């Protein structure tokens, strides 16, 4: 199976709206592939098409080598889909939820107990089997949802913002689990609003208005942002931002507490001018240093430019 996911002009129309338009995408088996984009870009619709929950309007997609249109019943056993919303039964315990999913996927009785035990250990939930799912913390709920998604040992994971609203420590635990699955050869297709997560993917697609406007490795995406970013810490960030936004060499100024992130073509050329302008306005400069461009910087820069205005 060279390609885990391949789409050809995949399109989904709803009344009066094309949610997914002409998408051509190939994800090799074993890749961690990230999907980012503004709210309403069509990320969830795309994932649902691949998971055979929605039927495409035009084009087609192969998942695990089978068509999501004509062979959906062959696709389903191969994929594990985790939706953005919490889909577990809150009044069932951790163990009951796992058993329920084992029933749905008809996991044979002789392997069931062992597999559930492995998944509990894997998701660090062994000590919580009797707790109702509704009483788990946000991070534990996500881990349980992932464990249920893995009950039939899918080779292709379709994860729709699996860590939204989860604290950084739990997010890290969750990604450790994804890392292990990746190591075992699983293909992971994940939508995320967190740019540090996008940075962990081998390739990232930026989706906007139903289309994929950019698809490349995080390093190559970051290389698309022209110029440099400098962090200038000032006494008064509000005034500092106001002053620098009027400077012709500042392409963009973002406030981070007392620190300003200023995007400019050539910091060496621009900095003396920035300095002078701030001093003239009576704004004290605490420090100036270059910032290594993050995916977050790159996203803000690129998503605002490519394919029209966002939200």
């Amino acid at each position, binding site marked *: 199976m060279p390609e885990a996911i391949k789409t050809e002009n995949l399109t989904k129309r709803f009344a009066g709206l094309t949610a997914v338009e002409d998408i051509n995408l190939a994800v090799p088996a074993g890749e961690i592939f990230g999907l980012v984009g*503004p709210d309403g870009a069509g990320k969830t619709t795309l994932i649902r098409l691949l998971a055979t929950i929605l039927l495409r309007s035009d084009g087609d997609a192969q998942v695990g080598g089978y068509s999501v249109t004509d062979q959906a019943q062959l696709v389903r056993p191969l994929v594990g889909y985790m939706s953005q919303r919490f889909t577990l039964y809150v009044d069932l315990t951790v163990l009951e939820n796992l058993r329920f999913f084992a029933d749905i996927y008809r996991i044979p009785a002789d392997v069931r107990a062992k597999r559930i035990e492995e998944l509990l250990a894997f998701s660090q939930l062994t000590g919580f089997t009797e707790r109702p799912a509704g009483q788990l913390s946000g991070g534990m709920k996500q881990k349980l949802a992932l464990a249920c998604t893995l009950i039939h040992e899918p080779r292709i994971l379709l994860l729709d913002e699996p860590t939204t609203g989860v604290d*950084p420590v739990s997010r890290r635990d969750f990604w450790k689990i994804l890392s292990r699955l990746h190591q075992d050869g699983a293909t992971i297709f994940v939508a995320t609003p967190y740019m540090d997560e996008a940075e962990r993917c081998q390739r990232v697609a930026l989706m906007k208005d139903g289309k994929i406007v950019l698809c490349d490795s995080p390093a190559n995406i970051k290389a698309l942002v022209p110029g440099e970013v400098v962090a200038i810490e000032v006494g008064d960030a509000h005034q500092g931002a106001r002053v620098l936004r009027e400077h012709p060499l500042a392409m963009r100024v973002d406030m981070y507490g*007392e620190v300003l992130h200023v995007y400019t073509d050539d910091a060496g050329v621009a900095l003396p001018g920035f300095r002078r302008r701030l001093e003239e306005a009576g704004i004290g400069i605490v420090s100036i240093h270059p910032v290594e461009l993050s995916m977050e910087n790159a996203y803000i820069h690129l998503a605002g430019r490519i394919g029209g205005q966002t939200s």
Partner: protein
Amino acid sequence: MLCGVLDPTAGRAEVLGFDVSKEPDEIKRRIGYMSQKFSLYEDLTVAENLAFYAGIYDVSEDVFAERRLAILEMADLRGREDELAGNLSVGWKQRLALGCAIVHQPPMLFLDEPTGGVDPIARRHFWDLLYDMAREGVTLFVTTHYMEEAEHCHRLGFIYDGKIIALDSPKKIKERFADHIIEMVCDDQEAALALLDKHERVRNVYLYGAAVHVNFGDFTGGAAEAGKVLKAAGLRAMNAAPVSPSLEDVFVSLIERAQD
């Protein structure tokens, strides 16, 4: 508790000078509150939602007429007054919810994870609005899971297991954190994580964006040590070097310590 909705079991708190257990109604009337689940009426329009909250907060009609315009302008919702709230995308809903929370011009605003699941650009717009309010003198009390958002705050508290485990400006919190963090990129990150996790000097090790961060505690020779260990196992580490800790590094480490 700070909004005057839950009564403290012990201790006391004052918000805007009022006691949360004795004068909760004085507080409720004066604060704005925006929750992670936007409390908008999906089957009411943008304008109707604003009018509803103005009614709840007893905003007089002529004051509301002015406020309404200012809020629509702020939230960039002019021209969309008659759209159903339910039809707005999350980014717009968020700005409308903020508008509803400040219809009575509260001097104090509580925001409970206001930007969950919103893309970085919508989050930036939202924070620009918050900065404008802060400049006008509004006090903002925000909870967030985004460390990059925590950087926006003048001061921040890390809360874990019901206790505040750090409280200061983002800069001071980072400065006070003494652990040595090594950043590197490996040819096999997952193997490197597993290997370094077992190392006796390593406090913790985790993915950080595309790189791996290794916390060596007070040990200063981490970069060389990590390179040596990985090389012995046939792995290659690129650019292993000490970095100044980010808020996320600090948060993760403080929590792990609190768990021990």
